[in-house]
């Protein structure tokens, strides 16, 4: 058991990666059982992630050195900075890994029935496993080039998964090509930024770069590249336009994972700003850039959602809008990072709201996309104009939709309310207008989810849907688990904030702890 726990960081990556290569071989022998095999792999990965989380939250950051004599020895004697690939998993990294583990497990379970009738399912699961591997890698690594490798794997597997249903009418292929182009641009720019670090400091270890950081002109350029590209990959307005295309055309279980992938990019943005640069940069300027991107994302995302007729496009615009809340909360924290009084008064709380909203959004947005998938599974359409009266036949899906919609709209006692309340109150102390905009966006969010509820679920039973039944058990199970977590997070938000969110925020803010974990007293 101790051996497994010691090598858990490597296993979390190795297990889905190995399974990705085993899956097509397994498919040759028993095609039907692949989905169960992949779900089991994700189940074990989730358990490993939970074990790691327990260890990190009690004993502190885990350092795992690949290829070294000792897994925990980051800096052998005589070295001034580490040269091997290191996983540095602190409370923020494990916070994100937990999201990835839960979401990919439930996406795999949901896919058991959802993808049953598709051909090429072995390739689908291989890509899903690769995508999950890349997300874990992005979240756990302490090496900036290693991050780039996982960032690329995530883009490539996402492109293939978005286009998975391309035989339908060509639209998934178009969305995938668009995603490929913007992913290529971001990969190129991120690589260039990493090159700027390596050219100056001669190291790729993030803690070492942080300790050497001078905020030179080249560092400024690297920051601009990282900031723009990672904000774009997380769907910030006005670089969000790929999001509705990609999210709506991907199979629903994949859309849920794509939301988590975008959040992994957002995490990378926060990690680079806080752990690499911290107070060396002009925190007020960069904080306000995040805030403005956040407000634009919130407002334009939600107003575009209100006018959509395609259920998944509507929800995709809401993903953009919700990303805005995260940018706003963390942006306020960054803007007051160099002001200890303001940071203690409301900055940490604002960041807690923003970070708490990441996990809440993954849960309720995941649930909502799964309900949209359930509707598509039974009706064969995403067009809200063609739906109606489905609550008569799909009572579980209706219930799960109500929970998801209430949570995203910030209605108590669901989880979205808790994180939004923290954001409103803390942001109000920074700038009241920003809090008012955030509240207005919540009202519009409710309005657009009422639109879906009215169009798809309410009304008389339509002739063409009279024979429609509830979705299969595996899909109901995935939605039920998400609903239960949403309710639990909503009823006991204090536990989540105290044990998961607050340590994650402090891990971001405390740069010296991040560097000293690897470099000791340097």
């Amino acid at each position, binding site marked *: 058991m101790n051996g497994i726990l010691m090598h858990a960081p490597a296993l979390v990556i190795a297990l889905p990666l190995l399974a990705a290569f085993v899956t097509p071989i397994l498919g040759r022998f028993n095609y039907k059982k692949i989905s169960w095999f992949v779900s089991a792999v994700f189940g074990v990965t989730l358990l490993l992630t939970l074990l790691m989380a327990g260890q990190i939250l009690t004993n502190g950051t885990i350092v795992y050195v690949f290829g070294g004599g000792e897994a925990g020895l980051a800096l052998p004697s005589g070295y001034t900075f580490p040269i091997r690939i290191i996983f540095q998993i602190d409370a923020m990294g494990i916070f994100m890994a937990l999201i990835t583990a839960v979401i990919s497990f439930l996406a795999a379970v949901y896919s058991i029935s959802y993808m049953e009738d598709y051909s090429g399912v072995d390739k689908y699961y291989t890509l899903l496993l690769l995508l999950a591997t890349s997300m874990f890698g992005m979240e756990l690594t302490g090496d900036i080039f290693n991050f780039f490798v996982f960032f690329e794997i995530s883009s490539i597997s996402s492109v293939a998964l978005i286009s998975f249903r391309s035989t339908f009418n060509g639209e998934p292929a178009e969305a995938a*090509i*668009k995603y490929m*182009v*913007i992913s290529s*641009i971001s990969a190129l*720019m991120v690589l260039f930024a990493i090159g700027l670090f390596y050219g100056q400091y001669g190291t790729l270890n993030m803690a070492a770069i942080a300790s050497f950081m001078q905020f030179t002109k080249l560092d*400024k350029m690297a920051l*601009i*590249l990282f*900031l*723009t*590209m990672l*904000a*774009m990959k997380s769907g910030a307005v*006005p*670089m969000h*336009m*790929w999001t509705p295309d990609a999210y709506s055309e991907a199979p629903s279980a994949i859309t849920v994972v794509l939301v988590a992938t975008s959040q992994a990019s957002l995490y990378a943005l926060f990690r680079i700003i806080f752990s690499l640069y911290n107070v060396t940069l*002009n925190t007020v*300027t*960069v904080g306000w*850039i995040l805030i403005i991107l956040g407000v634009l994302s919130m407002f*334009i995302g939600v*107003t*575009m959602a*209100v*006018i959509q*007729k395609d259920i998944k496009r509507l929800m995709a615009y809401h993903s953009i809008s919700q990303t805005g809340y995260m940018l706003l909360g963390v942006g306020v924290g960054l803007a007051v990072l160099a002001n200890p009084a303001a940071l203690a*008064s*409301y900055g940490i*709380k604002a960041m807690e709201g923003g970070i708490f909203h990441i996990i809440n959004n993954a849960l309720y947005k995941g649930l909502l996309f799964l309900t949209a998938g359930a509707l598509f599974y039974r009706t064969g359409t995403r*067009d*809200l*104009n063609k*739906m*109606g009266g489905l609550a008569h036949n799909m009572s579980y899906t209706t219930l799960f939709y109500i929970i998801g919609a209430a949570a995203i709209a910030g209605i*108590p*006692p669901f989880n979205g309310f*808790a994180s939004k*309340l*923290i954001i409103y*109150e*803390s942001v*109000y*102390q920074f700038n009241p207008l920003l809090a008012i905009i955030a509240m207005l966006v919540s009202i519009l969010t409710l*309005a657009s989810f009422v*639109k*879906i509820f*009215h*169009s798809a679920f*309410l*009304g*008389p039973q*339509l002739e063409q849907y009279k024979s429609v039944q509830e979705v299969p058990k595996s899909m109901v199970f995935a939605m039920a688990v998400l609903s239960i977590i949403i309710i639990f997070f*909503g*009823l*006991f*938000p*204090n536990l989540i*904030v105290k044990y998961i969110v607050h340590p994650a925020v402090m891990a971001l803010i405390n740069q010296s702890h991040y560097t000293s974990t690897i470099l000791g007293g340097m």
Partner: protein
Amino acid sequence: MNIGLLETGSGHWNALIWFIAVLIIGAGVIYLRNEGEEKYKKGTNQTKPFLSGNPEISKEDSHVGASHIYWGFTEALKNYYEPLVKMHTGSINDYSGWIILIMAIIFIIVGVS
């Protein structure tokens, strides 16, 4: 009651108290509803909707489709929506253009700060 008590920085929030309050208020509302209205007569004209004297159309025909919901809202904000929708061209060239533009703006802001 500390169970479920969330510190928000400026105050507190307890979902459990809220939940109990909703249960009590809900029970009161259900009680009042069950008390009934003496003048209510089921199956008479009282229970039918009054549409300015026009005959009631079937439920299937009266269901408002997604495209018509919030028509007034979008019509009132036409000047806001027209350029916003136009901005979403669906062309990858424009997507790339926005990325370059934002990068240039951030470059100037961070560069001069």
